[in-house]
């Protein structure tokens, strides 16, 4: 996995990574947490919304009930906001001598990975809920007894965003920066 072949030399990936400030990784993690979650929510809402509005032309009764699908997609964006706020409270300032200490590097990586988890889990959750919400609206327009049954499937889909939030928060608890010297 490394560029060097001499015995006793370590990976060249590590040599590159150890030069990057942990604050870079933290900032990227926080940005991805909220940015990609909102992308997922928006994508889901546009998939659901366009089907809902189209189906409501012939069956106007479906509009108020099917707004639930839009709310499920929106919840995904809210998860992203919550985790981004939690992650940014985990940032602490560290004296310049300790920025590249092993403990601060680990804290930076933990925040980065937490942000990536939340962002991408919410992206796929938003897409999933959007697609199912669209078919929910279309089948509700045909036959109103189907709405609640397809909603059960949508609830399974929205659990995926929650998994991302849970793991993101568990991982952000690992982000402990070195204590300041007194």
């Amino acid at each position, binding site marked *: *996995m490394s560029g060097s072949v*001499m015995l*006793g*030399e*370590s*990976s060249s*990936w*590590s*040599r590159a*990574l*150890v030069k990057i400030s942990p604050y870079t990784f933290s900032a990227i993690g926080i940005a991805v947490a909220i940015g990609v979650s909102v992308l997922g929510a928006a994508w889901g809402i546009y998939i659901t919304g366009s089907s809902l509005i189209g189906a409501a032309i012939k069956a106007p009764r479906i509009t108020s009930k099917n707004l639930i699908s839009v709310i499920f997609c929106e919840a995904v964006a809210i998860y992203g906001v919550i985790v981004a706020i939690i992650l940014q409270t985990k940032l602490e300032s560290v004296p310049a001598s300790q920025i*590249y200490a*092993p*403990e601060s*590097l*680990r804290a930076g*990586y*933990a925040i*980065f*990975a*937490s942000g*990536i*988890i939340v962002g*991408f*889990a919410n992206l*796929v*959750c938003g*897409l*999933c809920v959007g*697609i*199912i919400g669209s*078919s*929910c609206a*279309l*089948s509700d327009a*045909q*036959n109103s*007894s*189907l709405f609640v*049954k*397809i909603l*059960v*499937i*949508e609830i*399974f*889909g929205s*659990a*995926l965003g929650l*998994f*991302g939030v*849970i*793991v993101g928060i*568990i*991982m952000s608890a*690992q982000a402990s920066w070195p204590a300041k010297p007194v």
Partner: protein
Amino acid sequence: MSSAFSGDETAPFFGFLGAAAALVFSCMGAAYGTAKSGVGVASMGVMRPELVMKSIVPVVMAGVLGIYGLIIAVIISTGINPKAKSYYLFDGYAHLSSGLACGLAGLSAGMAIGIVGDAGVRYFCHIFFISFHLLI
């Protein structure tokens, strides 16, 4: 640089990325499976509404994949604790590969569940319909 440099400070990067891979890819598989079979169930439900509740099985199977990814991600991320036990590059790479193994397997399983569930649910509708008519 002399050979005194060991990359063990950066090992948590690979470890945490392994946990991330486990969860993100399994969630992608679960989402694909849920969405694809859900669309099949909805289209089938228009013709035979009484079969919808029986056809939710592929959706449940796909949801379980997300739980597998969650478990592995939590196990990996609580295993990265350099204060309790020293964490070498070897451990980092091992966690990365275990996370990728779980995640990519979940992704493929989810895609399989989606495609098979969609086709199966639509076929289930027809087969039930035909056998009902035969019964009559």
